[in-house]
């Protein structure tokens, strides 16, 4: 397999993630979709690392994995916060909050 296959697959996963972020109204679902996007990018990075035959892309992906985990921890804490305050985990990303 060549680079193109991996790039296309990563782009497909990334698009699916974007789709999920835009359509989902469940905060946990949105967070999972963001994870999907991050995973797609990591696949890109590793494929590019193989293409350039150097470790840089893999190191980048390693950092990206660590960052995503940190992000998920804070994000789920915020989900809990919302749940305690409101009683559900619904979120409207596309609109401003109204009084």
């Amino acid at each position, binding site marked *: 397999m060549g680079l193109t296959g991996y790039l296309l697959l990563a782009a497909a996963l990334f698009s699916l993630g974007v789709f999920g972020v835009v359509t989902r109204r469940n905060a946990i679902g949105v967070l999972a979709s963001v994870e999907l996007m991050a995973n797609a990018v990591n696949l890109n990075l590793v494929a*590019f690392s193989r293409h350039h035959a150097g470790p840089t*892309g893999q190191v980048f992906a390693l950092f990206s994995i660590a960052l995503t985990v940190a992000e998920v921890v804070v994000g789920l804490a915020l989900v809990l916060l919302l749940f305690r305050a409101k009683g559900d985990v619904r979120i409207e990303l596309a609109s401003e*909050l109204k009084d």
Partner: protein
Amino acid sequence: MNLLFGLSPFLAVGVGALLLMLAEAFGKPNVAPGVETTDAGAGRAGELALGAAVILVIGAVLSVAVWVAGPESLPELTQVAPHLVIDKFTLFFSFTLCVGGALAALLAGGYLPEHGIDRSEFFPLLLLSTVGAMALSAAGDLLTLFVALETMSLGVYSLIGLRRGSPRAAEAALKYFLLGSFAAAIMLFGLALLYGATGHTDLAGIGAAVRSIGSPGSTVSAGKILISLVLVLVGLAFKVSAVPFHQWTPDAYEGAPTPAATYMAVAVKSAAFAVLLRVLLVGFGDERLASWGAGWPPALAVLAVLSMTVANLVAGRQESVKRMLAYSSIAHAGYALVGVVAAMRSPEAVSAVAFYLLAYTVSTAGAFGALILCGSRGAEAVSYEDLAGVGKRHPAAALAFSLFLFSLAGLPPTAGFFGKLYVFRTAIDSGLYTLAILGLVNSVIGAYYYLRVMVYLYMREPAPGAPRAVTMRSGFVATALVAAAIFVLLLGMAPGFTLDMASGAALTAR
């Protein structure tokens, strides 16, 4: 040794954050008798705020010290390059960031106990987030850039999540987080493509690879570079909250504790502009990309015009002063973007933007601080009506508020006036007449809603029988306001010195 000295602003803030955490964990709770708590940090917001402010001031002083010593005379600093590029550009921004952080910490020292958000975690988070912001302004490599961006952002997400109980605030915090990580993922995609297209992660190497496009033997694909440019711009436009990536801003500012909103408005924006300038000028500095016909300047110009116009039009219709200040921060992002566009032609524009952001930092922090002073005991001053009559009840707060609003509106003799003057002048020097004129028109529109606050402060009386917020007295907030006022007046009356420093910053950004 020289290496340590060169990195001292970063180390001071980072180590200070850890010390503050230890102090918070092992210090004795200092609460009034009768209040029972297991929280070791309860009641100690004052001490921790003072500690955090002192650490950040040390960071600012060290930035100046390294500046005076001259980063170019410290050859050891190349050891950390390109991950951290310690040049005058970085040092100017790290000074701005430390000042903004210190003002936010002082405001928090007064605000948190007054509003029952006695969360001592606030200060370590603030400091660590500032470390991220400083590293972001120094980032010369995609790896550092992304790690620093996330460090700063995660700190801010946590800060605004500290107010609990209000569904609106929690929803705003979560929304900001989700949109922020969405934007970060989009930007990461752009960074990955950039690495894939060029094989480099350092901005200088990327810049060289981009320049080689079209020359024989170059394997760099122009399509990938363009797509990654768009994706990176989207991510950073979100961070500086430029229209149309601004939707989260008013909600997040309104829901956040006011000092956290202050920090978001000043530090996050300044750091994002620093990295925007460096990425565009070093990574995408190729003449073909940095020209009016193609590349990033027209895209940024559209963002700038949209940000100024939309924010100014919407800000005037807000009923909440905090939301008005949020839209004002969006409008200021637009003015600063005018400077970034001008940076494609004149290196002076970089210094104009740097100066502008310093002026904006002290004015905005001051305005938020004055707003804090106008409310107390769990009741924030929210609407314009809450401000009615403050000029009589609390003349000092009203005077300070007016000064900072003058500066935000860009009236002389304040810092904001010279900030706008330099940005628009460099725009005219670069031949961007339309952009400069649109900026001027918008400044005039913007003055309307700043002056409206002053009308309420001085010329309106609270409606009879309306609940009247007791104005707050706090040494911390007062100190922050005095410090910010000194900066505003100093930059407004004698801008030469700071501008010389800023113009030193410009030359090394390339």
